[in-house]
């Protein structure tokens, strides 16, 4: 015999329990998520002021109390049985049989349809429990709420996981570099050589200060431009880190930027009509910020353009103008001479002049041009190609001269530290302390005995040479400092 009274009592209680659980989940999420966010914000920004650990427990208790309050209210509220049976009918697809049974049970127990309906309901509602199964959404809400409460209670004790900002920025840099590499095709990338590594290391050491700057994106771009500069410098002649460290202004990257424009133009031509991507716009905008008024204005106009064809046209114009500026710069022999002098160490006062550090190509030439007479007077060619095209033996002698100058000049008239006013590659313009150093030739011997243009990039190798040459320990320390400097302290 179907116990109608008991059936209705059970389904009503089950409905209330389910509603209560649902409200508990709702309460946990509604109170827990904002509380968790607030707590995280406090831990992030007010951590130094000190947050009592008990705050988390109290907050979690509050959230729990609110949620349980929701649940209790739901549990105490009687759901109308008509509503319960209606929902049950709908969930089980029973064509309002349970609701109709309720009507008869409530109002007309002597109805001739009562027993037939009881029989039908008893037969068709066997799976009624499935109607009260919690939905995935409700379960998810409940789970999320519980996680929130646990986090709220635990976070003040364990703190937020420490995130190495330098590491994250390196990741961002590499991501940006690869993105730009994708966008520019043949554009040279950072991190492929010693010079690049050195620059990266230097950038990383400056990054904590950068991290507080809102110009984080800009620093990434600067890093990219700096990498371009370094790369070009390494390609043009030996691995002269001093070159890359000294020249980070926009002027010095003009040839690389021109390459970038070339690649961009080629890609636009290949892709047909398309607009600039965010990354491309970013690069152009940042370059424009560092360019002279004319280029900056051209770039601003280009960025404002929305027509694909006009963008290409303006890019071409920008490229031509950029090339013109680059040619103007490389056609200045005086600067080359000064560069050569300064990098050979024979004219240290010149080194402080930023005009000497115009381009990486210039500095590369400076090293090679010193081989002409060993005194720093330069008659080298006016471009970087000349440098790479020189006799390797000459370059070896230059290397020997440089290391010799460093070693022998230590403590005498060659300053190891000079001040240089530069336009920073990372931060604002200003004066920074700059170490002027040079690479060490791998094969430290006579000019006749040298065979290549490879420079020592490892201190162990350099140390072996210095020891073999009986270089005093003090002088060796200078060399070691140099290597530590170029490797960011990590030899």
């Amino acid at each position, binding site marked *: 015999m179907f116990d109608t009274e008991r059936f209705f009592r059970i389904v009503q209680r089950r409905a209330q329990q389910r509603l209560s659980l649902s409200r508990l989940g709702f309460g946990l999420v509604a109170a827990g998520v904002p509380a968790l966010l607030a707590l995280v914000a406090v831990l992030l920004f007010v951590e130094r002021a000190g947050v009592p650990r008990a705050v988390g427990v109290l907050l979690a208790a509050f959230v729990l109390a609110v949620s349980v309050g929701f649940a209790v209210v739901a549990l105490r509220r009687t759901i109308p049985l*008509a509503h319960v*049976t*209606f929902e049950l*009918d*709908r969930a089980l697809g029973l*064509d*309002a*049989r349970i*609701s*109709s*049974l*309720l*009507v*008869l049970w409530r109002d*007309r127990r*002597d*109805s*001739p*349809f009562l*027993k*037939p*309906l009881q029989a*039908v309901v008893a037969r068709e509602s066997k799976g009624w429990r499935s109607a009260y199964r919690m939905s995935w959404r409700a379960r998810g809400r409940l789970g999320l709420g519980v996680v929130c409460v646990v986090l709220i209670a635990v976070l003040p004790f364990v703190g937020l996981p420490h995130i190495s900002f330098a590491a994250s920025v390196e990741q961002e840099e590499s991501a940006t570099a690869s993105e730009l590499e994708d966008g520019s095709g043949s554009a040279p990338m950072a991190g492929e050589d010693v010079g690049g590594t050195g620059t990266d290391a230097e950038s990383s050491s400056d990054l904590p200060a950068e991290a507080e700057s809102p110009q984080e994106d800009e620093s990434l771009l600067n890093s990219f431009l700096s990498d371009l500069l370094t790369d070009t410098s390494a390609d043009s002649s030996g691995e002269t880190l001093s070159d890359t460290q000294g020249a980070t202004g926009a002027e010095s990257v003009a040839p690389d930027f021109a390459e970038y424009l070339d690649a961009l133009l080629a890609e636009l031509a290949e892709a047909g009509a398309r607009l600039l991507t965010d990354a491309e716009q970013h690069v152009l905008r940042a370059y424009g910020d560092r360019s002279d008024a004319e280029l900056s204005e051209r770039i601003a106009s280009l960025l404002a353009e929305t027509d694909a064809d006009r963008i290409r046209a303006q890019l071409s114009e920008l490229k031509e103008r950029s090339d013109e500026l680059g040619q103007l710069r490389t056609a200045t022999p005086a600067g080359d001479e000064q560069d050569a002098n300064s990098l050979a160490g024979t004219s240290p006062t010149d080194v402080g002049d930023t005009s000497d550090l115009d381009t990486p190509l210039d500095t590369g030439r400076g090293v090679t041009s010193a081989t002409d007479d060993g005194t720093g007077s330069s008659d080298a060619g006016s471009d970087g190609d000349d440098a790479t095209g020189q006799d390797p033996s000459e370059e070896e002698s230059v290397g020997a001269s440089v290391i010799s100058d460093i070693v022998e000049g230590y403590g005498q008239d060659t300053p190891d530290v000079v001040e240089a006013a530069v336009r920073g590659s990372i931060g604002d313009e200003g004066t920074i302390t700059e170490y002027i150093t040079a690479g060490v030739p791998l094969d430290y011997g006579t000019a006749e005995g040298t065979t290549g243009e490879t420079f020592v990039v490892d201190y162990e190798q350099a140390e072996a040479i210095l020891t073999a040459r009986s270089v005093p320990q003090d002088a060796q320390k200078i060399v070691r400092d140099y290597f530590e400097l170029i490797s960011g302290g990590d030899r």
Partner: protein
Amino acid sequence: MTSEQEVRDTVEVFGQLQTAIGQVIVGHRSVVQGALIALLCRGNVLLEGVPGLGKTLLVRTLASSVGLTFSRIQFTPDLMPADIIGTDILTEVDGKRSFSFDRGPLFANIVLADEVNRATPKTQSALLEAMEERTVSVRSNTYPLEEPYIVLATQNPIEMEGTYPLPEAQVDRFMLKITVPYPTLDEVSRITELNTEGEGIVLPKPVATAENILVARRVVREIPVADSLRDYASRLVMATHPHEASAPQRVREYIEYGASPRAAIALVMSAKAHAFLDGEPNVRPSDIDAMLEQVLIHRIILNFRGEAEGVTVSNLLDDIRQKVTV
């Protein structure tokens, strides 16, 4: 109070009744079902269809199968009220003259008012009292009509010239309006076979009595309707009102007047009868949906724009059904 046995017997009788009618009336299941529902709910039916579809045969078959008296009135423009309700006539008995009431054709259990829209409004209105009050008044006398009583009126939708369309007040008294559709190919073949072979159409013998119908009416009223379904039916009716918030957009645009509370009563009652004929112990949402159109289609009046744009009430009811859920 009806007993469970009465319920079982009645359900069985009506099963036999449907079978008997189905042996004569080919197809038209919804029409037959509508007529039975009206009979069970003490309602009247307006049948609309072109001539030759078997409307009259349906009514005759129904009357024959339940063993009830049947009368057919052909409505014409010159038909007078007295022609249908009857009149007092002067009679002389034993030398004494007196008026006696000569009953008209309305005094039958089942009345077929054929082409009801061809009569004048005066005659049409004579039907009002009979249909709703189940009484006929002549001079100062009121005569009750014998139960079960049902009026099935027909009207032809294609010959409207010279007709008197039923006024809204009178249309509202028809519980259902059933559109008689054309039969299918198979049905036509079966109809020709029935009418041309052997003895032709033979009306069924009675399988039910007037008493069975009266009991069935009580049984139908006992069928439970869930609160949610009663609410659903009410909301459906309310959604036909253009100023109601729950009304669909097209209802607001094209309907002048919605259905009356009488329509809600008819909807719930007919849903009960529908469930009964299906042998169900309770009203289901599908019962209400099934009766929605037959109950409401003649109670909704389109506005000028609706008429001009050729909107049909049937389409509007579909909109309502989609918007209003159980």
